[in-house]
């Protein structure tokens, strides 16, 4: 009895997905030739080319896709529920696990959102370090996207080369934050520790080497007939539809809309920096690849300017009710000990209200909508994740494509399921 119930429960979702697929157009013409008929193909969630646990159910006519449905939630960990049950600081390590390709940018986005809610601004040196971190994360993510897209269409070498460069980035993060992958570097009102001169030298060396590495990657791909042939003219997203579906980031800019939160809704020290917003008008998968590739060079420019602007100074905002005290102060001063106890156990108490802050992360607009009831835990913490919204356009651009293009189109969207599933 119980087993039968379990089987029924298991088959019910599949039934609903197939029903949803079929509801679009249920007329199926059966012909004599068995290869002539439409078929439904399940791709994922365990598939090497879906960049994680994305499941796409495709409806095929021969090799042409005539409809598709995305299924998300295989990596849903309920971070919004968790956030409501912990203090603002405790959630910072969880932001690393959202977009795990660029964790440090998520730290920056979350801390900026909380600081906006609490009306705190970090000192200038901390702002510059945050920009450097966010741009290093963008380089890391874009290299991964370029490499993975190359791998998806058969250029495995590029993937190994981009991973080599990212390995150097991990070494930098190791020196800067003490961890290679899940960094948890930012704190509300500042960051865990200051940047060292050793780390600055490493960043400079990395940037010098990166110019040569991107030239090599470009030489490998940009005149490669197979790569261009596989990616050109597929997954076309017209500009008005890109806006309508809510795309942000490289996807939107590859559709000819020049919109970048760093320039158009500036935060940190971005207004002082000189950089270009890369825009392409081809709207296809190759354009999205090129936008990312060119943005790496812009990020290098930004980091170089930031390193020039970096002056000695404090890295913490001066507000004992919000910013965690330094460890050496906790063990020597009574006042700091009390503050540390209160902040760790009960959290910061922001004023009642709501706030929204977004940054231009590597995938697009990454924002937090926070509702506070005046206590140490957020009442509601909504993550506006770019991968989730970008995937929403997938069904639209898959229509009419060939089945072999699916991996290239998914690769050009660069979805990270940790972020899309929250």
């Amino acid at each position, binding site marked *: 009895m119980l087993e039968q119930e379990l089987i029924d429960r298991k088959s019910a979702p599949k039934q609903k997905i197939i029903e949803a697929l079929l509801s679009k157009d249920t007329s199926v013409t059966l012909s004599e030739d068995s290869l002539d008929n439409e078929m439904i193909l399940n791709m994922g969630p365990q598939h090497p080319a879906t960049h994680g646990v994305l499941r796409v159910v495709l409806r095929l006519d021969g090799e042409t896709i005539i409809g598709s449905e995305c299924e998300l939630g295989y990596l849903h960990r309920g971070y919004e529920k968790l956030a409501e049950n912990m203090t603002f600081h405790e959630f910072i390590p969880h932001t690393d696990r959202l977009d795990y390709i660029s964790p440090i940018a998520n730290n920056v986005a979350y801390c900026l959102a909380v600081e906006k809610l609490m009306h705190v601004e970090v000192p200038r040196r901390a702002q510059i370090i945050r920009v450097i971190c966010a741009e290093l994360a963008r380089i890391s993510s874009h290299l991964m996207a370029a490499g993975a897209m190359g791998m998806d269409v058969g250029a495995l070498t590029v993937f190994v080369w981009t991973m080599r460069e990212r390995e150097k980035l991990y070494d930098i993060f190791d020196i800067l934050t003490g961890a290679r992958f899940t960094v948890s570097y930012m704190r509300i009102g500042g960051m865990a520790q200051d940047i060292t001169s050793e780390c600055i030298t490493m960043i400079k060396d990395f940037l010098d080497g990166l110019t040569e590495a991107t030239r090599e990657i470009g030489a490998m791909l940009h005149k490669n007939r197979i790569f261009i042939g596989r990616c050109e003219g597929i997954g076309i997203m017209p500009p008005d539809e890109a806006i*309508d579906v809510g795309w942000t980031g490289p996807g939107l800019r590859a559709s000819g*809309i020049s919109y970048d939160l760093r320039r158009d809704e500036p935060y940190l020290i971005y207004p002082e920096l000189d950089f270009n917003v890369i825009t392409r008008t081809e709207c296809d998968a190759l354009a999205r690849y090129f936008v990312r590739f060119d943005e790496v060079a812009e990020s290098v420019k930004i980091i170089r300017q930031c390193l020039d602007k970096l002056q000695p100074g404090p890295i913490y905002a001066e507000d004992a009710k919000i910013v965690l005290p330094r460890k050496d102060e906790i063990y020597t001063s009574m006042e700091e000990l009390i503050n540390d106890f209160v902040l760790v156990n009960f959290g910061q108490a922001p004023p009642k209200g*709501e706030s929204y802050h977004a940054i231009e992360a590597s995938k697009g607009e990454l*924002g937090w909508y926070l509702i506070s009831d005046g206590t140490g835990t957020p009442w509601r913490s909504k993550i506006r994740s770019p991968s989730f919204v970008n995937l929403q356009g997938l069904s639209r651009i898959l229509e009419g494509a060939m089945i072999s293009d699916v991996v290239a189109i998914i690769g050009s969207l660069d979805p990270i399921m940790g972020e899309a599933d*929250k």
Partner: protein
Amino acid sequence: MFAFDDIKSYLPDFTYEPFDVTGTIGAIIPREKIRDVARIIKEQFGFTNFVDALGADRNERKMRFEVIYNIRNLQTKERIFLKVRCDERDLHVPSVVSIWSGANWHEREAFDMYGIIFDGHPDLRRMYMPDDFEYFPLRKDFPLMGVEGSIPLPKGSEFAVRMN
């Protein structure tokens, strides 16, 4: 600069209650008006880019749930927030998918997490949770540790044995 009073020239009986999202303007509007207001701000004021929609549980006796829409004008770089509220006994909110198709998955997520039913939504299924899940996990009365037995576990696992 856009102000919500401008809508009155297109919709004379438009009433709203302003709210502030740390510097950005927002308006709480009656839920039966949301589709009219959405169409006007999209077509007349150029708010074409649908950024986000989220549900929230206010945990109050009246008007327990709310939906917040985050909309942007790409030309003027303005951002506004709209909010509609609904009661626990009447969980219906008109869907805005026909105006901004980007609202599709966000509304599905709000339905998944809070059980808010969006009337006129083309495909209102759960977004993240299994389709046969019976609860709405982001409601404040749903426990953090989950409900025992709400998700069937593989047979033979320790948990399943304990349940039998």
